[in-house]
């Protein structure tokens, strides 16, 4: 297993700080059903700020479902029912009064397939601020630049901000999506397999970016790729059949998992 565990050494540096961090998301006894399909079962997870938390598990185990529940995007599917509590910064997001639009301006999301809007690069980034009432051109310009820099794509696109975002490569599009998400200065960024549609080089870029963003944002990332989880995350949660089997320091999960199923999975015995 040596090859796989290698990248963790780098993360070990961060370990001492972690203990003091406060929670951004506290999930308690979360259950979720698609119609009669019980997709999430008694999930308890405590996610800390300014960390990268990876969620891994075989296909269909509920990773996407869980991450979509965190910003209530799951509600776009009519058959979904939930029970339990998710506290975001100590407020239950399932509360009646909790306005979902407000939650989502605090919690950004990056999707599996890059999904820029069919607009210019500039308009893509400015979309979020604009709908939230920022119309001043100067401020928008600043936001666009800052976000694109934050997503490490400013240099590549600064001369073609007026072009349609669909003219970019997949990797660039994905970083545009990340920039779009940064433009409203979220607190948390959710990422659902953000690199699975990308080539290796673009993947690398996005991974580096995630490492970088960690300073300012709390990041929750779903990935199929165990090497990726090992490379970039601080904590890892292993999902199986809608349950959290194990949640721990990434280091620990990949070198010395406590659950046999975790071991089986990361050693490739299934999935």
């Amino acid at each position, binding site marked *: 297993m040596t090859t796989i565990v290698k990248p963790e050494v780098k993360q070990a540096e961060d370990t001492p700080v972690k203990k003091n961090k406060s929670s951004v998301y506290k999930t308690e006894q979360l259950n979720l059903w698609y119609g009669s399909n019980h997709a999430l079962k008694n999930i308890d997870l405590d996610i800390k700020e300014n960390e990268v938390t990876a969620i891994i598990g075989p296909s269909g185990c509920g990773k996407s479902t869980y991450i979509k529940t965190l910003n209530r995007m799951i509600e776009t599917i009519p058959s979904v029912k939930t029970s339990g509590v998710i506290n975001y910064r100590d407020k239950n997001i399932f509360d009646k009064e909790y306005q979902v*639009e*407000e939650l989502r301006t605090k919690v950004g999301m990056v999707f599996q*397939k890059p999904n820029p809007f069919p607009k210019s690069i500039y308009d893509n980034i400015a979309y979020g601020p604009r709908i939230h009432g920022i119309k001043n051109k100067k401020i928008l310009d600043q936001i666009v630049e800052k976000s694109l820099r934050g997503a490490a794509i400013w240099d590549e696109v600064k001369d073609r901000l007026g072009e349609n975002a*669909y003219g970019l490569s997949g990797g660039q599009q994905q970083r545009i999506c990340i920039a779009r998400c940064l433009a409203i200065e979220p607190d948390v960024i959710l990422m659902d397999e953000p690199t699975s549609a990308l080539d290796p080089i673009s993947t690398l870029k996005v991974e580096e970016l995630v490492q970088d963003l960690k300073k300012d944002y709390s990041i929750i990332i779903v990935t199929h790729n165990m090497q990726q989880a090992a490379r970039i995350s601080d904590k890892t949660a292993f999902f199986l059949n809608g349950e959290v089997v194990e949640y721990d320091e990434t280091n620990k999960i990949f070198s010395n998992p406590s659950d046999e199923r975790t071991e089986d999975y990361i050693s490739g015995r299934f999935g």
Partner: protein
Amino acid sequence: MAMNEPQISVQELIAKKSNRGLLAFTEKLIPKILLLIATVSVLTTIGIVFTLIFETITFFTEVNVFSFLTGTEWYPFANSTPTYGILPLVVGTLKITAIATLVAVPIGIATAIFLSEYASDRVRRFIKPILEVLAGVPTIVYGFFALTFVTPILRSIFPEIAIFNAISPGIVVGIMIIPMIASLSEDAMSSVPNAMRDGAYALGATKLEVAIKIVLPAALSGIIASTVLAISRAIGETMIVAVAAGSTPGFDWDVTGSIQTMTAYIVQVTTGDAGYGTTIYYSIYAVGFTLFLFTLAMNMLAQFISKRFREEY
């Protein structure tokens, strides 16, 4: 794989049975037959163009082309000096089309937005077929409805409106094309990938913001194309105007009085069955040809729009 049955070798059976020669022959023949069938649609167009062109040419041996195209008086039935200036018929057609468009475009697009962005699956599945019924109502029924229901209502509100007018059939033609705009625009809007909506929702956008700022622009070419098609349909609509718009072609922009459209003129003459060979008989072909060119131009425009401005995503 222990099997009790006598062992059969499928490959041997196949080798015995298959008739590659015959198969290869049909394989060659079929596309040719299908190609012949496919050319029927082309022949139809050729047939239409030829029918219209020949009689139109005969018509132009009796009536000057230029005065036909630029004339502002259409009195083919006059005893001494019949005049054939098509502009009044064109203007009549445009009045109907304009009113229909004003009714149908806002309502149609609003319906499309509601169905594609707000309505639940069940509501959509319930409403769409009903709208299709609205699109399938025979136009003679609409004509009857315009004359016996819409016109009296309009006249009770605005007494200056005549019994035959452009407004009532215009509105009803509009109602007739609402489903067309709604349904085609809804198709265009629902084919905008959900990923795009998700992207906006995840930024905290409301449904309205997603609909207006993301979906509408992305589906714009489809929406415009559907509108153009619907307008073309309004131009060619016949029975509603034949029944409810009157038959006095005028070269003005008054919509409260009786008008005549190109289609209604054709019906007027054919129900009177102007016999073979009179100038009036030929005139319906000239008018038909003009009408054909109008709708052809609109259809080409619709195709151009949906091809040229198709969003890349």
